[in-house]
């Protein structure tokens, strides 16, 4: 089932070094790139069907076309490497094992959108990864792939690595821009969208690491070669991070469209012996959980996930077996989003803490029957009333736990009730 497109050089020793990477094909597309018109590059990316790999799945080539034409402002590229969604661990492999694939992708993207300054916003905890990435960038400068004249062409590209300070919210694209600008990482109200008014008030394209890293293959082999993988609306391959209670957790590159349960069983070895599948979080902690039953019919692509009222997300698959306490899992999840709420707007700032405390009360044996419906109502009251979708990431997931595993919450509360003295 596994394929080696993005991960082709992952298993080659020292592929993070330019010499090794180059021997195995890195920067091979640049000769071709500079013979093309920027618009042609965009067309190829559009034709490939590549969708944003950060989680939202917005078509990458289409995003580029939103840049206003004929502006006298510079265009910026911001590469989102703030990989912080719980259960997501794909971009770090690119950063460490094949950073030159990312740099090559950046050159391709910059050329297509006529940008000369790219910022890689890397999550603060990725210290080791940032060092390797910076070393690769330094090598690329020294070799003339970056700098005033990329490969001798009259095209300047400067790449700056900007380390975050540990806030999940800085993976939200406008909070990311605020953070690069040196401000507190808080999302901006949209519109204006970054493609029109982004970094330093200039048009900005923000793409995920994996999206950018997919570009060299698409440019080298063509859109059709990429579309040969995956489904019609979800083309290509994806780096899936499979974690949770499986025998072989890890990062696996797979074409899109494979049956979820089959992947869990065959690629990740399935749940441990003697246990049964309880549910699967399909694409990072913010995606609504699938029950074991629902998971049977799901395939790993955007359409199937949407049809099952969940999301493809970031490829971070968490497998839950029958030993998992869904109430405690829900509390763990809400705690994360509560802790990471930037505190800017009211519903998220106040609401997530309230929900967390209610869940804590339920676990502590102080829950009331109406708490479940209160939590569900709070999900509705918070969701989509906020500046960004951080709170929705929490409420969509929490709602799925409450609805699909309600009996577990009720059991906690029933135990509470039986423990109460009879009045």
């Amino acid at each position, binding site marked *: 089932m596994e394929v080696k497109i993005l991960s082709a050089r992952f298993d080659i020793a020292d592929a993070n070094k330019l010499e090794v990477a180059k021997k195995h094909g890195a920067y091979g597309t640049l000769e071709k790139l500079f013979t093309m018109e920027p618009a042609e590059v965009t067309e190829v990316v559009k034709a490939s069907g590549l969708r944003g790999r950060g989680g939202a799945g917005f078509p990458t080539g289409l995003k580029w076309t939103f840049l206003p034409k004929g502006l006298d402002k510079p265009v910026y590229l911001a590469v989102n490497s703030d990989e912080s969604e719980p259960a997501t661990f794909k971009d770090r492999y690119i950063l460490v094992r094949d950073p030159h694939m990312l740099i090559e992708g950046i050159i391709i993207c910059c050329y297509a959108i006529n940008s000369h300054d790219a910022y890689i916003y890397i999550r603060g905890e990725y210290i080791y990864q940032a060092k390797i990435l910076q070393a690769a960038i330094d090598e690329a400068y020294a070799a003339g792939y970056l700098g005033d004249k990329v490969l001798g062409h009259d095209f300047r590209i400067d790449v700056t690595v900007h380390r975050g300070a540990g806030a999940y919210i800085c993976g939200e694209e406008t909070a990311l821009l605020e953070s690069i600008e040196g401000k507190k990482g808080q999302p901006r*109200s949209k519109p204006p969208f970054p493609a029109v008014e982004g970094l330093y008030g200039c048009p900005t394209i923000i793409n995920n690491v994996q999206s950018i890293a997919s570009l060299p293959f698409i440019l080298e082999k063509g859109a059709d070669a990429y579309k040969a993988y995956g489904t019609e609306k979800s083309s290509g391959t994806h780096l899936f991070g499979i974690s949770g209670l499986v025998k072989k957790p890890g990062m696996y590159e797979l074409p899109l469209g494979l049956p979820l349960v089959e992947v869990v069983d065959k690629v990740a070895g399935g749940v441990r012996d003697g246990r049964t599948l309880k549910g699967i979080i399909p694409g990072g902690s913010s995606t609504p959980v699938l029950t074991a039953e629902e998971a049977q019919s799901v395939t790993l692509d955007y359409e199937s996930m949407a049809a099952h009222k969940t999301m493809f997300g970031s490829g971070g698959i968490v497998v839950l077996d029958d030993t998992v306490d869904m109430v405690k899992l829900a509390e763990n999840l809400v705690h994360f989003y509560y*802790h990471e709420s930037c*505190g800017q707007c*009211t*519903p998220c700032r*106040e609401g997530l803490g*309230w929900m967390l405390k209610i869940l804590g009360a339920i676990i502590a044996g102080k829950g009331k029957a109406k708490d479940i419906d209160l939590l569900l109502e709070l999900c509705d*009251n918070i969701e989509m*009333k906020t500046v960004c979708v951080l709170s929705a990431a929490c409420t969509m997931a929490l709602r799925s736990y409450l609805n699909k595993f309600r009996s577990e919450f009720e059991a906690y509360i029933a135990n509470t009730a039986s423990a109460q003295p009879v009045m």
Partner: protein
Amino acid sequence: MADTIKLSVNGVEVEVPAGKNLIDAVAAVGIEIPHICYHPALGADGNCRMCLVEIEDGRPPLVAACKTKAAEGMKVRLDSEKIKKIQRDIMEFELINHPIDCPICDQAGECILQDYYVKYDHAPSRMRVPQVTKGKKMDFGSGVVHDQERCVLCARCVRFTRLITKTGELGIVNRTDQARVNIFPGRPLNNRYALNVVDLCPVGAMTSKDFRFRQRAWFLTKSKGICHGCSKGCNIYIDHNREKYKDDIIYRYRPRHNDLVNGYFICDSGRMTYKLENEKRLRVPLAAGQQVDLESAVNALKRRMDQADKLVFLVSPSCSLEQMRAIQQLATHKAAVLSGYSEGYIQKGDGDDYLIQDDKSANRAAFALLGIDESKDTLTAALNEADLLISFGNDLSLSGMDCTALGKTELAFVGSYANNCADAASYLLPVASYSEDNGSIINIDGVLQRYGAAVVKNEPLPSMLQILAQLGGAFGDVQAVWSDLNSAVEAFNKVDLQNIPAEGLALTVSEVDNVTA
């Protein structure tokens, strides 16, 4: 762009001013979109989410009204069940961690949470878990005391220090419900406009050390006034109250919006000048150094004037236009030398490029329009000859002249505030101050503004105009002065007293060209 646009609110077409956001646009026709963080002087931030409205046929259907420009043909819906529920929900979120300590909160009575709870929420609390606790009574400096628990994180205060004073002392630290407004360690509020954050704060999180716990807001009468602290003439509310068995006392000044003069704010030192109205006031009339009743003092001074060989009138640059004109008339009538010398009111270099002016007098611009001499030479030359100097509120000691060493010149003082000059006077006539009187002043930018009497004392002092009439002046009241101004002073030929706009009248530049700063 057209000056107005048409849009529909709740299905009713309204015509609103163009170029504004939805909140301000529909507010102009009397429709309220509830909002907490938005303030017209600070721009839209969009953090409170109270102003979410539905735009029919819009994309996205739900928008923050503060961030959305009113557009021709827009269909706004505020009365749908969905919007009403959002307003209730936002209020619930604002209140779950709010201490609801209204009984001991200074903001009670003028608090947006109270007002909106009544208007938009009215739901009982569903909060059964412990509230977030934060810092209380934190001294932020410059007379500002902060309560983090009452704070709704609207960031108005933070934006004020960034956008208006550009001093940036305040920030919001921490995330999630631990977010709180704070100063940097050891770096308190340090700007001359800091107390505006108290007015800006929609709740009781920012309180004034000077005002807190002194009065309940609902007891205060909020009268319009004009600050006399400098030559800017900022518009204020004079908040005063007469407690049982006590006198009518001013408790605070607050800024009153006027785009022609001060915008939305006032400076801290001007704000504190309310104390001069309550304290250090002249009360006891003097005649020839003896305490007498007012009538006797007026008569005594009138006799003394009649006996004088050489008479000098000294007028304060903070007198109202009407007072100045009446003094000028009396001076002419009595053949007195009239001087406006008041160099000491000007504190060179104290002003800034915002509201605070070097000139701490309120009405110097009127000197030039009335042709009142301000030179030191004229005054000193006249004093050499004079045997009686009558100062109308002018504290000559400010300008470096010793009022106790005027030689053979006897000193009379007609004014409101105790000062060195009044102390040295052998004739003293206390009069109503500007907060108890009405009049007009012209600010440094040539804006003519009217003010009315805000405070009525238990034992009211006479106005300076009444005293002037009793001393032999020709004008009995403001109307009489204005008839004269209209006919005799060119600058006021076309000014109709009854039709001076509430925000003031900008006199043409040429008329105030020669006003010294």
